[in-house]
């Protein structure tokens, strides 16, 4: 989970530096950051130029100038070729389906925090927090390694089930096309649950204790304070994070799905980001993949702006 960023674009509270002194001084400061601005240009703005590849039938061997200009052919292909359309429909179903599962599970970190807050033993709480936040800091390759040692046909779970006589043939948990979305959502939860709760735990520690005390005086029990005080106080944080995940509905990333991908689950694991990689890099259809990349980027920006506008109307402040 990425935290919502802070953007303070207003002039600094206190004017820094000697105000507008010599113009030469101000240019000198600018020149000193030029090399870094060049990097920003090269890696963030210049790639937008790469969108022109979607208008060509790009062949790496011939270079862009030697490749044929085809206009909007790739975009037309996306909506006219039946095989292409059915592929895209499946990919979109995977993308939205798994994003939806991610959004549906976004209450879990909140619940985690509310319940962990009821644990009185400090060392137990700290131990739980350290262990449950750890998976957030390992790579997806390692998550896959863990999945492999637990759930492959020679993994721990199958070993235990076979040796205890519950099953005779190992279950293929990983090499299977059933429940792929759920399994992926499950690994996502395993990786991010504890870390996602950190933000809520901090918000809880900021709640005015007087609220709890007056509730207790009024005879509120433990569950009532949890439900009527803690949970409502966390709602603003929850709302911001929810809005951000809605804005990122197309951005599943590809790493998780790439490492878990195999010949058996390919149909249901291919999200948009992975599809672009498979078509572009593995399949070498760079122009078609550029067209899909480009559409995705545009839709993502529109989504972000829309969600931000909605948040602005509901909360009065923007989320980005």
């Amino acid at each position, binding site marked *: 989970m990425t935290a919502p960023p802070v953007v*303070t674009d207003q002039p600094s509270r*206190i*004017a820094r*530096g000697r105000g507008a002194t010599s113009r030469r001084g*101000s240019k000198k400061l600018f020149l000193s950051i030029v090399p870094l601005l060049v990097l920003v240009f090269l890696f963030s703005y210049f790639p937008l130029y790469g969108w022109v590849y979607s208008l060509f039938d790009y062949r790496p061997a011939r270079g862009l100038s030697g490749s044929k200009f085809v206009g909007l052919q790739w975009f037309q292909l996306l909506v006219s070729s039946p095989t292409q359309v059915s592929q895209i429909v499946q990919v979109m179903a995977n993308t939205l389906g798994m994003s939806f599962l991610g959004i549906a599970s976004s209450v879990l970190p909140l619940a985690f925090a509310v319940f962990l807050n009821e644990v009185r033993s400090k060392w137990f709480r700290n131990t739980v927090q350290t262990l449950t936040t750890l998976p957030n800091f390992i*790579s997806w390759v390692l998550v896959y390694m863990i999945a492999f040692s637990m759930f492959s046909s020679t993994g721990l779970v199958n070993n235990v089930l076979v040796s205890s006589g519950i099953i005779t043939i190992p279950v293929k948990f990983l090499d299977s096309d059933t429940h792929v979305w759920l399994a992926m959502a499950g690994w996502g939860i395993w990786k991010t649950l504890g870390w996602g709760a950190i933000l809520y735990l901090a918000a809880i520690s900021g709640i005015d204790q007087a609220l709890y005390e007056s509730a207790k005086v009024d005879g509120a029990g433990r569950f009532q304070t949890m439900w009527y005080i803690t949970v409502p106080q966390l709602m603003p944080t929850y709302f911001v994070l929810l809005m951000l995940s809605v804005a990122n509905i197309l951005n599943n990333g590809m790493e998780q799905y790439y490492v878990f991908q195999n010949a058996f689950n390919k149909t249901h694991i291919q999200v948009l980001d992975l599809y672009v990689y498979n078509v572009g890099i593995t399949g070498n259809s760079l122009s078609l993949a550029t067209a899909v990349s480009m559409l995705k980027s545009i839709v993502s920006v529109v989504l972000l702006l829309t969600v931000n506008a909605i948040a602005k109307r509901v909360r009065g402040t923007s989320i980005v």
Partner: protein
Amino acid sequence: MATTTTTPRGTQRSVRDLGFTIFNYAVFLLLALVCGYPFYYLIINSISANDVSALGDVRWWPVGLQFSNYRQAFSLQGLPQAALVSVGRTVLGTAATVLASAYLGFMFTQERMWKRALWYRLVVLTMYFNAGLIPVFLIMKVLGLTNNFLVYLLPFVVQPFFIILVKTYVESLPTSLEEAAEVDGASVFKIFWQIVLPNMTPILATIAIFSAVAQWNSFQDTLIYVTDQSLYTLQFLLYMYINQAASLAQAAQQAGGNIGAVASAATSQTATSIRTTVAVVVVAPILLIYPLFQRFFVKGIMLGAVKG
């Protein structure tokens, strides 16, 4: 917490409270085990007798304790090189990101800089859009960064989120120090190096730790931009060992084992021993630094969430 009152209602409540408390502890104990046990499982398997671990019989504690796997792991083909690449990109990449974030974050507080607001907006804007995987790949090729070690460093130098963190932090520092130095005639650059930078260490530590973890864990850039084996990272190598039996067998032979044959001895390499050992090598830095620097991680996410 459970209040012991003598009224029936109070007793009922305290019994219910006790039940909840036990349930709550049990659930969190389970969650902690689900998150922690897999790491333990990898570690005990990597230090057990290889003929036992290959059968999947190492579950609770090491069986036939031995540490030779770690010595042998470093004779696997390509592994020392991959370790060098991973360590190199982590150290150099983190240093570059920290310095650039500190410098740009500070410079964006200097109002007399020419068109300061414009440059700042251009940098921040890059957080909200992305040209897309393939266009970026094509441009990296144009720039000559495919199969180039620099692809691990240059794209990560300027990170808008870190720059915002530094800028906000510098703005919260008292201006008196800076002003005093200026009265003494110190240049902006001198003020940055000698006054502001030393006062930024808390925020820079947070940035360093996040950036180091990201560098160490990075896998996708090797996958997309690199085909030259001498530039493989540890993460990439581990992925190959899990998924490609051929490369695993080859690696094992180099280390004096034979994957195809039934593991015969406690120290000859098996698929399990190589995978678990390399996995532990890959995760060890995270396991070692995470508990020590947990507060920096937590601080990082808090700083990012000020607005939420």
